[in-house]
């Protein structure tokens, strides 16, 4: 059997984090191939169900990226995101999921380097945690 490789879902907002990922590519910063980016209009579009569904389907880590406070293209999307995300995370931790398996971070369109670094750090963390406890990793 092939060695386990993490599969990480990154839900990125179109206006900041996705642009940051784009910039990371333009500037030739490398980040791990385990990252799978899903683009959404706004991090406020990320319903907690997206995260639980990803975990249920075997994702080893879920990373949500949005704009810094005050930068939201729709003015208040990220203020909702942080409330929903933190509450969901509390429930997920109570349900036995590791604290570090889901993460929320603000990455702006100019932070290509930060994007690449965050992805590298998150990938390393997930490799340390091992496969998703629900399915034993996406490859299985």
């Amino acid at each position, binding site marked *: 059997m092939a060695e386990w490789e993490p599969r990480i879902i990154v839900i990125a907002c179109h206006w900041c984090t996705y642009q940051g990922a784009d910039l990371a590519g333009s500037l030739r910063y490398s980040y791990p191939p385990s990252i799978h980016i899903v683009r959404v209009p706004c991090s406020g579009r990320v319903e907690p169900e997206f995260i639980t569904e990803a975990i249920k389907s075997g994702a080893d880590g879920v990373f949500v990226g949005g704009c810094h406070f005050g930068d939201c293209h729709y003015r208040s999307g990220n203020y909702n995101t942080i409330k929903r995300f933190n*509450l969901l995370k509390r429930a997920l931790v109570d349900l036995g999921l590791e604290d570090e398996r889901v993460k929320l971070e603000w990455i702006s369109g100019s932070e290509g380097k930060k994007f690449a670094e965050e992805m590298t750090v998150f990938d390393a963390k997930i490799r340390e945690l091992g496969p998703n406890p629900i399915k034993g990793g996406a490859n299985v």
Partner: protein
Amino acid sequence: MSKPKLAYYLAGGCGGCDIAVVDLSETLVDVALAVDIVFWAPTVADAKYKDLEAMPDGSIDVGLITGNVRNSEHDHIVKVMRKKCKVLIAYGICATSGGIKSLVNLYTTEQLLDKAYVDTMSTDNPDKVIPQTSCIVDSKYDLTLPALFDAKPLDQVVSVDYYIGGCPPHYDHVKTAFTALLTGQLPPPGSWITSGKALCEVCGRNPVLTGKPKKFTTTIKRTFEGTPTEGACLLEEGYLCLGPITQGDCGVKCPNANMPCRGCGGPIPGVKDFGTRAISAIASMLEKEELVDEIPDPVHLFYRYTLAGSALGKKLNR
């Protein structure tokens, strides 16, 4: 025309849903006359499992199942019911989403048996005897018990045609559902039998219905802290009411009695995972993010009736 045949089975439930049927009072007489009850175990009719198993497949018109699927006996009878019934209805929140009893999924069966038969202070069980699936008494009588497993909602075991929420369903809603059944005015298979309205849409405390703006939740209160203002929205008062995502077929009984909704009615149409959507709805209503940390025990609050039917379905690393 012969009367439609009705079968009813209580799996891992408390019998409260059966009482909700009895609460139909005079209407129950009409229902009882209109249908032929062929099986109602274990509460109402004196029927044996072998009688049900002997019936031809597809011979029963409507089957109602209450309670979640919690052990091998439930599992077996539920599958038999599916074969014998043309239309199978998950009746009550336990059958539809797992119910309050699906909170057992936070623990393993071994932990629960230990707690119930060994660990509790009032238990006198020095030999640590716990129920076994089979045991031989007097070296000749082979006795068996069903094997326990994690609680599951009905649709994780068999296909379900209709869902009715509630813990238990309000008798007015049961009346509506039975009338729809008997007159054949049913929604497409796979749907919930519901008015389709959220509790807030029918709640007298909702400020939006009287043209007032909806305010953010600024404090978090437990139900025993203080008394809500007469007629004010419980969410605005800081009591975490799950009305925004719960079906409002219950007659708004709890909020009218100053108790916030806990979501026993099941999710409004379009919502698959009640607890997660409840987290989304309630978190968005909080005024600031610090309030999130003040909410006590989010799992028991948001997944109170729907843990088994949620995406994770149980606690990991138990």
